[in-house]
């Protein structure tokens, strides 16, 4: 007769907890990782703060041409159409004809447009009057999202050139109204949300990956697999430890950004902390899933950029998603960082509250769930 076996419990909070504390202890002792946690955000912020302020192309704008035109010596003239045509030919902007007020609503809700332009009813007549030396004030209304200096520069540049093309008329005023309470920001202000996204992607992913595979490198995986610890407990233990790390890293990035570099946070700072934390978690889950396919530190280090570079390119960090080619726009939907940067920018630059960011949070939630599910499914209690 065999003796009856005790059950070690299908899920033990204690075992999970001790895996977590062990991982954290190892983490804190690893000076290299610690240095990386602190130095990398500062470095990246410095570099991108300067780099992210050039001109961009194909910025979507809405133009409403209300100009009724005029007839001069039997010819009909419409300066409004001319202006619209020149804007249409300018590669810096991408013109959609539409309603000015509707455009403003689109911009306020960050629906992909950055400016709405209204050319007034008497535009041609006023120009003709002005040419006859009559004292008139000609004004084009421009409602613009100034939160991205590069985008604002492109829009203003295109409008300026279009006005000049009306046979060099320089007497037209542009009444510029900034969206989001007229907020306009420096290169660094604008860089901070993107850099937060980048740091949280690259650093959290890499550090989590390195932490998760350390188990295999020391051969401790074999011993651990022979204990009552289950794969599920192990995954949760690692998730708990690394989530804490992601939270600390998110706070660090914010503290550096806001206090060291003086970045602006228009919205609620705790909402920002919360969203940084959620995004950090998405990356922790992804890392734990990926750790199943990574055999050594070199592969882990290669995996970091493999995720980070496409994220940078497609998330709207370097070039706004709206001005990317359609194929790139399509793929950007599948990049978690796209939503993270959207959220960070929304809160920091546009002062958005949670209800304006629900779809983005939902997207991140879905990514988190998928990656977590994958981590559970791919972790095994035995080796092959």
């Amino acid at each position: 007769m065999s003796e009856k076996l005790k059950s070690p419990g299908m899920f033990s909070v204690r075992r999970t907890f001790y895996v977590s504390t062990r991982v954290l202890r190892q983490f804190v002792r690893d000076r290299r990782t610690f240095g990386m946690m602190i130095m990398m955000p500062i470095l990246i912020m410095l570099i991108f703060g300067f780099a992210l302020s050039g001109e961009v192309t194909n910025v979507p704008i809405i133009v409403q041409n209300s100009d009724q035109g005029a007839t001069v010596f039997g010819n009909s003239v419409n300066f409004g159409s001319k202006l619209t045509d020149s804007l249409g030919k300018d590669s810096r902007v991408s013109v959609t004809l539409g309603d000015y007020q509707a455009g403003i609503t689109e911009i306020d809700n960050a629906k992909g447009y950055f400016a709405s332009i209204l050319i007034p009813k008497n535009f041609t007549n006023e120009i003709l009057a002005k040419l006859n030396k009559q004292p008139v004030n000609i004004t084009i209304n421009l409602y613009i999202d100034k939160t991205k200096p590069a985008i604002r520069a492109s829009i203003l540049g295109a409008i300026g050139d279009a006005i000049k093309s009306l046979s060099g008329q320089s007497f037209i005023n542009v009444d510029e109204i900034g969206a989001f309470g007229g907020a306009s920001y420096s290169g660094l202000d604008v860089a901070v949300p993107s850099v937060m996204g980048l740091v949280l992607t690259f650093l959290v992913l890499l550090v989590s990956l390195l932490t998760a595979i350390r188990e295999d490198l020391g051969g401790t995986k074999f011993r651990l697999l022979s204990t009552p610890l289950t794969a599920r407990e192990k995954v949760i233990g690692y998730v708990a430890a690394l989530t804490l790390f992601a939270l600390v890293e998110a706070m660090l990035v914010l503290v550096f950004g806001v206090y060291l570099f003086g970045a602006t946070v228009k919205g609620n700072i705790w909402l920002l902390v919360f969203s940084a934390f959620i995004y950090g978690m998405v990356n922790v889950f992804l890392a734990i899933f990926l750790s199943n396919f990574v055999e050594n530190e070199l592969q882990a280090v290669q995996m970091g950029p493999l995720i980070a570079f496409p994220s940078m390119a497609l998330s709207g960090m370097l070039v706004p998603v709206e001005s990317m080619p359609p194929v790139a726009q399509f793929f950007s939907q599948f990049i978690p960082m796209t939503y993270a940067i959207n959220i960070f920018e929304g809160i920091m630059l546009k002062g958005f509250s949670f209800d304006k960011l629900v779809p983005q949070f939902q997207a991140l939630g879905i990514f988190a769930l998928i990656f977590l599910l994958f981590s559970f499914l791919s972790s095994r209690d035995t080796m092959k």
Partner: protein
Amino acid sequence: MKYIVETENLMKHYEKGKIKAVNGLNLKIKEGEIYAFIGANGSGKSTTINMITGVLKPTSGHIKVMGYDMVKNRHKLSQYIGVAPQDYSVYTDLSVEENVMFFSRMYGVKGKIARERMKSILTILRLEERRKERVKNLSGGMKRRVSIACALIHNPKILLFDEATVGVDPVLRRDFWEYFRSLKENGQTLIITSHVMDEAERADRIGLIRAGVLIEEGTPAALKNKYNAQTIEDVFLTLSGDEAVDE
């Protein structure tokens, strides 16, 4: 006779059967014995150990531990097994104490009991003075002892030591074997792999493995008698001819 570990036609093949690491192994290990599992490099010792601990899944065949099928009862049986794998398998960035305590917790040993037990184990393994030291700062032989301490902390019924005495100096090795004997007195079963033949002489029984198959088994005296040899090493050499190394 009751066997505490039993394998039946156990196989582990790699690379779609090209590598037959273990190839039809039938082991019968009695409760409370010290069993030396010896063979050349690559003969399949570690692969066997890892299947007995449930870490590796067999390609085919059966493993019974305490009368239960290992593959089906892995989680429950894991509590009764302690293993010191061939590579040290301890966290080098943690201290000796932290390693031992961590594994004690994986086995659900209560803190107070674990600390008491750790104290006596570390004393016997002569690690007491170095217990606060990070494992990476220890010598190879000391790391090996930390690994053994981690295997002992939950007082398991079955102990598997894969090359436990590699890199351990002769004086300490003699002490080790004394300690192994005391574990046996305590009712624990020990399975020790080695390719050092004189070690095997101290075991109760010896199993010789070659190319994943058990080629001979018996008490040291019986084996020497059968092959008319002075030492187990001679038995081994007789059995394996010239192709002893690297199967």
